[in-house]
């Protein structure tokens, strides 16, 4: 009953002014594993929808790609909108794999992807909790997704988008592992993706801190929490051994 991030499969890309962006996994993905795709964007305007994320290349096969959480948020004035999205799918056949996210022409993207193994596996009921957080306050210094709660071991995935005109230091949550970030708002959409793996029931949010000073606007953030397949219900040990117990008592 253990969740692990597979090898060095996690990573991300920055894309300026395009209608689609993709990232290929460095190694073949394995059947039964979970792929999570986290994306942040601006200038695309629209909210993410399920069909925006596809497997665009590779020999692997994947199950239905679900949009597990999304948020589009106006950073101010109605014209400066960012969006975040979290998708997941199960690998049904091993092989090479490239995941793509699409949007309107001219979109600025950040895309983080990862592959995750669970000893008990994953299934369609994997999404356990979600949440979102946002702020329209310019030059925010602390951002978070809001809490999610897992009943047991779980994978917490967080994504944040912001915008602005300068490069600043964006620091991930100390309890999380950063997958990918972009800090230079003078050239790119800025944001971060990070994850936390827990082995027992946990309530947590993905947090970020931003270097003080001017140059960035507000933020939008989303959290998706994934649980592995529940262990099979066992036969109580006392009942299992009761006949022998009775035999020795006679």
């Amino acid at each position, binding site marked *: 009953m253990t969740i692990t991030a597979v090898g060095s499969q996690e990573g991300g890309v920055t894309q*300026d002014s395009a209608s689609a*962006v993709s990232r290929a996994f460095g190694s073949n993905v394995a059947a039964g594993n979970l792929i999570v795709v986290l994306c942040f964007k601006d200038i695309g305007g629209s909210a993410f929808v399920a069909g925006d994320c596809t497997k665009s*290349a590779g020999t692997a096969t994947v199950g239905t790609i679900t949009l597990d959480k999304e948020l589009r948020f106006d950073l101010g004035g109605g014209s400066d909108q960012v969006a975040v999205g979290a998708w997941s799918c199960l690998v049904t056949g091993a092989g090479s794999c*490239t995941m793509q996210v699409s949007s309107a022409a001219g979109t600025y993207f950040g895309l983080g992807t990862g592959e995750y193994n669970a000893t008990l596996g994953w299934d369609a009921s994997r999404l356990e909790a979600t949440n979102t957080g946002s702020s329209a306050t310019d030059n925010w210094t602390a951002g978070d997704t809001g809490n999610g709660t897992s009943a047991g071991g779980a994978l917490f995935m967080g994504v944040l988008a912001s915008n602005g*005109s300068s490069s600043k230091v964006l620091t991930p949550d100390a309890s999380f592992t950063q997958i990918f970030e972009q800090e230079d708002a003078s*050239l790119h959409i800025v944001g971060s993706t990070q994850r936390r793996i827990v082995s027992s029931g946990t309530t947590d949010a993905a947090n970020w801190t931003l270097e003080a000073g001017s140059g960035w606007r507000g933020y939008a953030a989303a959290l998706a929490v994934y649980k592995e397949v529940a262990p099979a219900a066992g036969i109580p040990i006392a009942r299992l051994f009761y006949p022998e117990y009775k035999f020795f008592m006679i």
Partner: protein
Amino acid sequence: MAALKNQLFPLADYANGTQVTPAMNVRVQDIAFYLSIRRCTTADNTIWPNASTLLDVLVELSEDAGANWRPLGGFTSSGGISPGKGPNGEAPNTGFQTNIGTGNQRRLRATITISGGPLRSEGFIELLDTL
């Protein structure tokens, strides 16, 4: 060491079809790269002016001096003036950046497919040893 900017392909009119750029050497210390292709702007509207001209790019990395290649990712983009982070609020280029760690004998190349062209532009790869 600093960032090193190389021209991926020179300014010219490129016909429809698929081309693979020559393999570009990557320094041992380079941990990322930024691939950029100039876009149409008010300042120079002769570059990639038509929204109907589409560009698909796949970037690949070799870690054995070009013997084997693996995809890193890519993008699809269309021409014309697009809002963005440049002068006049316009996107000056379509760009793609990702981390590649460090290592020896590395090469980068891009497979570029043009449709609805010809496409007039130029491309660069900037090798980054810090982020």
